Structure formats: structure tokens, C-alpha cells
């Protein structure tokens, strides 16, 4: 995809420095498109689950046309008045949504969508992911404290407790994956799961790691059971109580897209990313050429998004069934159970790597 | 019962239509009487259901609905207070549930309970005038209510 994009832009015969500008702008727009699509689909999935639980015939309200209402609603927010609290720290108040959106956009740029489209192929992919997730938490805390409201401060402080609880097990599970793939870059992690198709996915050697990351992932994105930093019934809207208009739209957008991307990351780390589970592609029937590339691109993207949406459906189902826990519960659960389990996971992974080293590329 | 409670200056004793005993006690010793009923083995009045006030033409009547959970007995203690200067002793130290009831009666009838720790209006706004459940409450005159602005 990137190859064709580059070729297309080169054919415009622009000057060298201008080519790069156009290329990166195009890539940025593609990522932004992915971000919007993922945020809206996450929102749509949530509403769909609720409609299933309600057992009412909601076919009139949940169709393709009405799903555009989410778009309209968020677009509407751009024209609303921005209300700034009186004694807030103005710079930090406006900086926080920007930090959230930027950190999420950077995470989107790390993802390998197919064999050759990955904007940021950095060798230090996992490390940058960790730092970006922490940057996101920093944005939340900044927004909460700067807006000078009791609800916001409590929400931000609770998010700090959450951060302490989830960051350590998260890094430990990433270590397991890094040991298996002998690499930190995302494209390398995906390709190293390709040798024996479904059997060489990392879900099997580091199952415990997946379980820990699955539990942690809802804490990273502030969703129930760990949504105490924006608990509706206790703290009006938590850290984003004072935000309105565009700022609120940006915060909600980045939260929903982070929810989507975290599930996508667990697909990449444990379920072989964009790889087909059977090792067979429809594109194999065609001879190599531009048509082959287009089919392969579409197919690989399909697998990536299909796996992610399946995981999101499962996550949402669990999130609806369990009440919110207390901040204390998450901290004690994390230090008592999750960290020991993820250390055991690393040991298991190391043994597997030594004994069945040839199983993974 | 008659002989035992003679020390409490019982003014009147009757049984209502649905079979509930109603004892009218003098204002000065009704609190002693209630604490006696609470502690005595004969009538362990461990629940104060509710306190009800009623505006009769010459006085304000306070009814204490007592209930004994163990003996399954129901009793109403009635106290009469002066209509012009309604003052009565509080029973919040005996029954904690009386706190809201007494605040409500203070709100609605203007009865002042001596010894109550937080005797403010319960249902009506603090700035309102008059006691609505009194028979001579003038709706047209006291209709406008100023709501408090500082929350």
C-alpha cells in the first residue's frame, strides 16, 4: 500500500522535499480515517450489545443510516460553545485534549495494517507503545487537575492509582512477547507468528500473558469494571466533567479509538495480527501483479479488523455484565495476582523459547 | 397497668376504633413515661414508628406511635402542647428515628423541641414563612417562596 502510495506521489513529479510532505500528509489522513472509523465502530458495537440485551425490536433504530447519527452527534459538538472554568489553568486545560489525541494518533501510526503499510516501522515499537500509553494517562491527569473541579481532581487522582496498578503488569506481558519474537518492532512481531499459521500464534505460549493483558486493557481505557475515574454515578463525568464542545469531542474520540486500538494491539501481540489463521489467501490464486497486491492488502486488513471486532464484542459483553470495582480493589488485585502471574508467564515463555526455539521465526 | 403507671400522671386512656390503645400523658413527665416503656419488660417499645402531630382547635396534639417488636404490641402516647407557645421535650436521645420526625413537625407545625441538636426545616425551604399544616395557614398570603441561592 505504501509502495503504491509512494509510486503515485512520485508520478506527480514534485520536488524532493515536497514529495515527503505530501507522502506524510497522505499517511496522516489515512490514519485519521482509520481512527474515526474505529471510534465510531466501537461506539456502534456498544449500542448493538445494549440492543441485544434489551430484547426489543430495535431494527428501526439500529441500521446503517442511523449509525451515521454518531458522526452527526460528534460533528455537532464542534459548533457548541467552549466553556472554560473560572479558576482553571488555561494552558493545561486546552493542552490535555491535544495530548490525548496526539498520543492516540502516534499509537495508530505504530500499527502494521498489512505487510507493507506501517507508518512508523521503528525498531522500538513496544517501548514507544508503553510510553504513548503513559502519555495518554498523563493527558487525562493533566486535564483533570487543571480544570479546578472536585469531581475532576478525584477522577484524575483515581486514574493515577489505576496507572500505578496497570503499568507494571502491562510491561511484563510485553516482555513475554518480546522474548518470543526476539524483537520490539510490531511488523517483526507479526511476521514471526507466520511459520505454522494458527499454531505459532503467541496466544498459546503466553496464554497467561494474554489473560493479564485482557484484564488490564479495560483499565487502560477507563472502561467498566475499572471505570472509576469517570464513574457516572459517583463523579459526574470524572476527569472530563468540565470539558465541553470541541474539547469533549476530542476526548471522547480519543477514548473510543484507544479502546479500539488496545484490542487491536492484543490481536497483533497474541493473535497474529493481519495474518490469515489458515495461511491461505484468496490472493494466492492470482499471479503477482498490481491486482494481487490489492487483493492481498484488502484481505490482510479484513483479518486484522475482523479479529479486533470479535475481541471487542467479547470485551464489551464482559464489561456490561460486571459492576465497577473500587480503586483499592484494582491495586490489590494487580499487586497480589497480576504481577506474580505475569512473572510466571515470562518464565514459561523463556522455557518454551529455549526448548521449541525453531517453532517461531 | 393502671396502678403501675400512676406515677406518670396519665390524663386519659382510650382504645381507638381499630383496637389500638391511646394514652394521653401530661407534658412534664411524658419523656420519663416513654423511657420507662422502652426499658420495662412488660412493654419493650423498641421501635418508634412515627411521630404525628395534629392541629386541633385549642392545642397541638403530638402522637408517638410506639411498637414492641418482641411482644407485637402497638401503643400511642399522646401529648398536648399549648397552641400559642408549642414547646416539647425531644426524644432523639431515646430513638434516633425521631430526629427527622421532629424536624418535620417543627417545619409543619412550629413545635419547638428542646434538646434537639439540629432543629431546622426538613421539607420546606429555610426561607419560607409560616407553618403549612396549621389550620390557619394562609395560602394566598404566604405563597411566594424565596429559594436559597447558596448551595
Amino acid at each position, binding site marked *: 500500500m505504501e509502495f503504491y502510495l509512494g509510486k503515485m506521489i512520485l508520478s506527480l513529479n514534485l520536488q524532493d522535499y515536497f514529495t515527503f510532505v505530501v507522502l506524510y500528509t497522505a499517511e496522516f489522513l489515512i490514519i485519521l480515517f482509520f481512527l474515526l472509523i474505529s471510534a465510531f465502530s466501537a461506539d456502534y458495537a456498544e449500542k448493538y450489545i445494549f440492543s441485544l440485551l434489551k430484547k426489543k425490536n430495535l431494527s428501526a433504530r439500529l441500521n446503517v443510516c442511523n449509525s451515521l447519527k454518531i458522526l452527526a452527534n460528534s460533528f455537532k459538538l464542534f459548533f457548541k460553545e467552549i466553556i472554560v472554568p473560572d479558576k482553571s489553568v488555561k494552558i493545561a486545560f486546552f493542552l490535555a485534549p491535544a495530548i490525548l489525541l496526539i498520543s492516540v494518533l502516534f499509537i495508530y501510526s505504530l500499527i502494521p495494517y498489512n505487510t507493507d503499510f506501517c507508518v512508523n516501522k521503528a525498531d522500538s515499537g513496544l517501548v514507544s507503545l508503553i510510553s504513548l500509553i503513559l502519555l495518554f494517562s498523563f493527558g487525562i491527569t493533566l486535564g483533570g487537575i487543571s480544570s479546578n473541579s*472536585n469531581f475532576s481532581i478525584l477522577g484524575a487522582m483515581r486514574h493515577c492509582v489505576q496507572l500505578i496498578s496497570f503499568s507494571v503488569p502491562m510491561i511484563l506481558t510485553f516482555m513475554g512477547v518480546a522474548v518470543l519474537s526476539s524483537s520490539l518492532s510490531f511488523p517483526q512481531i507479526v511476521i514471526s507468528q507466520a511459520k505454522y499459521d494458527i499454531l505459532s500464534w503467541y496466544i498459546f505460549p503466553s496464554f497467561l500473558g494474554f489473560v493479564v493483558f485482557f484484564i488490564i486493557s479495560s483499565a487502560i481505557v477507563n472502561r467498566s469494571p475499572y471505570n472509576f475515574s469517570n*464513574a457516572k*454515578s459517583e463523579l459526574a463525568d470524572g476527569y472530563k466533567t468540565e470539558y465541553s464542545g470541541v474539547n469533549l469531542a476530542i476526548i471522547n474520540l480519543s477514548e473510543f479509538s484507544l479502546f479500539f486500538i488496545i484490542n487491536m494491539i492484543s490481536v497483533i501481540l497474541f493473535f497474529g495480527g493481519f495474518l490469515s489463521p489458515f495461511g491461505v489467501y484468496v490472493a494466492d490464486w492470482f499471479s503477482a501483479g498490481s491486482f494481487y497486491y490489492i487483493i492481498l492488502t484488502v484481505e490482510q486488513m479484513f483479518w486484522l479488523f475482523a479479529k479486533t471486532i470479535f475481541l471487542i464484542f467479547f470485551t464489551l459483553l464482559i464489561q456490561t455484565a460486571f*459492576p465497577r470495582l473500587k*480503586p483499592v480493589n484494582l491495586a490489590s488485585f494487580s499487586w497480589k495476582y497480576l504481577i506474580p502471574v505475569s512473572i510466571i508467564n515470562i518464565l514459561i515463555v523463556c522455557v518454551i523459547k529455549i526448548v521449541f526455539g525453531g517453532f517461531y521465526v | 397497668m393502671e396502678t403501675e403507671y400512676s406515677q406518670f400522671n396519665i390524663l386519659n386512656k382510650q382504645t*381507638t*376504633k*381499630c383496637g389500638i390503645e391511646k394514652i394521653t400523658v401530661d407534658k412534664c413527665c411524658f419523656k420519663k413515661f416513654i423511657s420507662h416503656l422502652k426499658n420495662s419488660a412488660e412493654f419493650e417499645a423498641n421501635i418508634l*414508628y412515627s411521630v404525628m402531630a395534629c392541629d386541633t382547635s385549642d392545642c397541638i396534639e403530638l402522637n408517638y406511635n410506639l411498637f414492641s417488636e418482641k411482644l407485637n404490641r402497638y401503643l400511642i402516647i399522646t401529648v398536648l402542647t399549648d397552641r400559642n407557645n408549642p414547646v416539647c421535650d425531644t426524644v432523639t436521645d431515646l430513638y434516633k428515628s425521631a430526629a427527622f420526625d421532629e424536624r418535620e413537625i417543627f417545619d409543619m407545625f412550629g413545635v419547638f423541641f428542646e434538646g434537639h441538636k439540629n432543629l431546622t426545616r426538613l*421539607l420546606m425551604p429555610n426561607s419560607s414563612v409560616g407553618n403549612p399544616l396549621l389550620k390557619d395557614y394562609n395560602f394566598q398570603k404566604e405563597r411566594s417562596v424565596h429559594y436559597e441561592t447558596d448551595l
Partner: protein
Amino acid sequence: MKPICDSDMIINIGPQSPALYGSMKLAIKLNGEIIKSVESVIGYNHRGIEKLAESLTYLQYLPVVNKIDYLSGFMYMEAYCSAVEKLCDINVPERAQYIRVMLMELNRISSHLFYLGVYLSDLGSKAQFYFAFTLRDEILHILQDICGQKIMQNYFVFGGVKHDLDLNALNKICDFCSSFSQKVKELENLIIDNPAFKARTKGLGIITKNKALSYSLTGANLRSAGINLDIRKIKPYLVYDALEFQVPIDDSGDCFSRCLLRIREMIESLKIIRQCSRFLIKSSGEYKNNDVNPLQIHPQSNTVISHVESPRGIISCTIISDGSDKPSRVKWRTPSLYSIQILPELLKNRYYSDITAIVGSLDIVVSEADR
């Protein structure tokens, strides 16, 4: 090291808040995440229902009564009707009594379902909320078929009910009973066996025996503290003494047991509904005492009290009549008022996130407390 926030923080929850069941205010003083003191302020929903009685006749006051509580209208209707019936010596035919009992138990189930759904939704899980509300909708549809309205059913009159139940409605109730007994098990799986719910509510907000009695709690809140007090058993009204049911008790007194008892109560109510519908299908008779003319009720001066066991506790209605066609004074004892009163003591020195767990478990309806 100096703490970031060394002064106490004051947070107002309400008057409009999704966590409270109506408009009421909790002024909370916080130190970090720990609650130092709570003050509950009510009266935002005061409609003067006791004052209204002085200007309305006995019949005119009847539709006002079920507006006290939007969840248990039948219970308030029953309390008022039975008080007036005692006042004027009106007999209620047996069939009418059975109809009343059956509808009241249906109302109890719908109220408990509302409680469970909203409680779990406040704690943050939506699935149970939708599950309970779909079940409640079925009951409301049945009630609409019978009485015409879903919530403010103006169905009871002095000496009976307004119109007779037909076989169609009874069949619907029987269908509901058979499907509901299955659904209760699923609801128990979703709520009682839920590990996250247990972690939130077990051992929290414990009300001891003495505290419950001293604060005059009634209903399931009192029964969870180990005291068996149910007006339906100790002083049966209508045909409750002819029916077979048990009163579930627990002695732990925490939020979890309060929730558990309400689920058990729904099962017992289902038993009562089954017995009543069995009786009503077989028997036929008067649904209303035809000797009564509700337009002309002139009781002599007297005082009557009637007690009814509502989903939230004991309702009592006191009527003082003075010989005219209007009551001199009507006093309502509403159980929610006493549940609100215990909040400051339960919430003190707890975590801030325990507020929803404790307030929700007491089943407070603020409009009932405000009158």
C-alpha cells in the same frame, strides 16, 4: 511530606444526580477518598400531599394517593382504602381482596426489579439493568391491561376494585408466573453469583440489630439485620392469613444481604400470585361492595390507622376525621424517610466509591420521603 490537599473537600451529590433516586442532596465532606461527614437534605420534591387532604373529599383524595410513590402505587392505595373502610365499617368482598393482594404482589415484584436494575446500573453494569427492566416491562403491560395505566394505577376504590378481572388477564398473569420463575434463576446468576458484585457489597454498610430498631427501619432493610418483622405475618390485612408464604430473613445486615433478600422476596411473592390466580380462576363473586356510595362518605369523628407492607417497608396511614366529608388530617408514615436518616451514620469513614453501593442498597425513593 506535605499532602497535596490538606483541607477537607466538600462535594455535593445532587439535587440532580444519577446516583440518587429522586431529587435529594448529600453534602459530603471528604478527606482524600474517605468520607468525614455527610448531611442529607430532602424536600426538593415536596408536594404537600398531607395538606391537600384537608381541602379534598375522601373520594377526591384517592387519585392523589398513588402519586406519593411512583413504584408502589397499589400499596398506598390499599393503605388509604383500608383506612377509610375501617372508618366507615365497609366490608370488602373476598374476590376483591384476592384481586388486591395479587396486584399488590405484582407491584412488589416490579418495584424490586426496578431496585435491582437501578442498583446494578449505578454500580456500573448495564446488563442486569436491561435484564431486570425487560422483565418489569412485562409486568407493566399486564397492569396496563388490567387497570389502564402502567404506574399511576387508580384501580382500588372503597369496598373493592373498580372493575372485574377477566380470564384473559388472569391467563397472562399465569404465563408470566411460569416464565418468571425461570428468569429469577438467571437474575440470581447474574447478580448474586457475580464475583465483582460480591466484592463491592459483601461486608459493606452493616446495620446492626439495635441500630436498625433505633432508626426505625422496616421492610427488607430490617429483615436483613435478623429481625423478623413483616406486617403481612404479624397483623395480617386482607387475605394474607389465608395464604401460604414465607418471610426470608438474613442476619448479616450488609448491602449484599439486602439485595439477596429482595430477590428471595420476589420468589415468595410469586407463590402468593399463583395461589391468588388459582382462587380467582375458580371463584366468581362480587368485585365491589355495592352498598357503598363513594360519593357520600361522612364518617363520624374518629382516628384510624392502617398498616401495609410495601416493598420498602411499613407504610402507615393515619386518618383523623371530624364528621365532615373531608378528612381533618391524614398522616403518612413513609419508610424511605427513615432509610435516608440512617445514611450519615452508614457512610461515615467509608470510601467515596462506597456511596453508590450503600445508598442504592437501601432502596430509597425520595418522592416517597418528601410527600
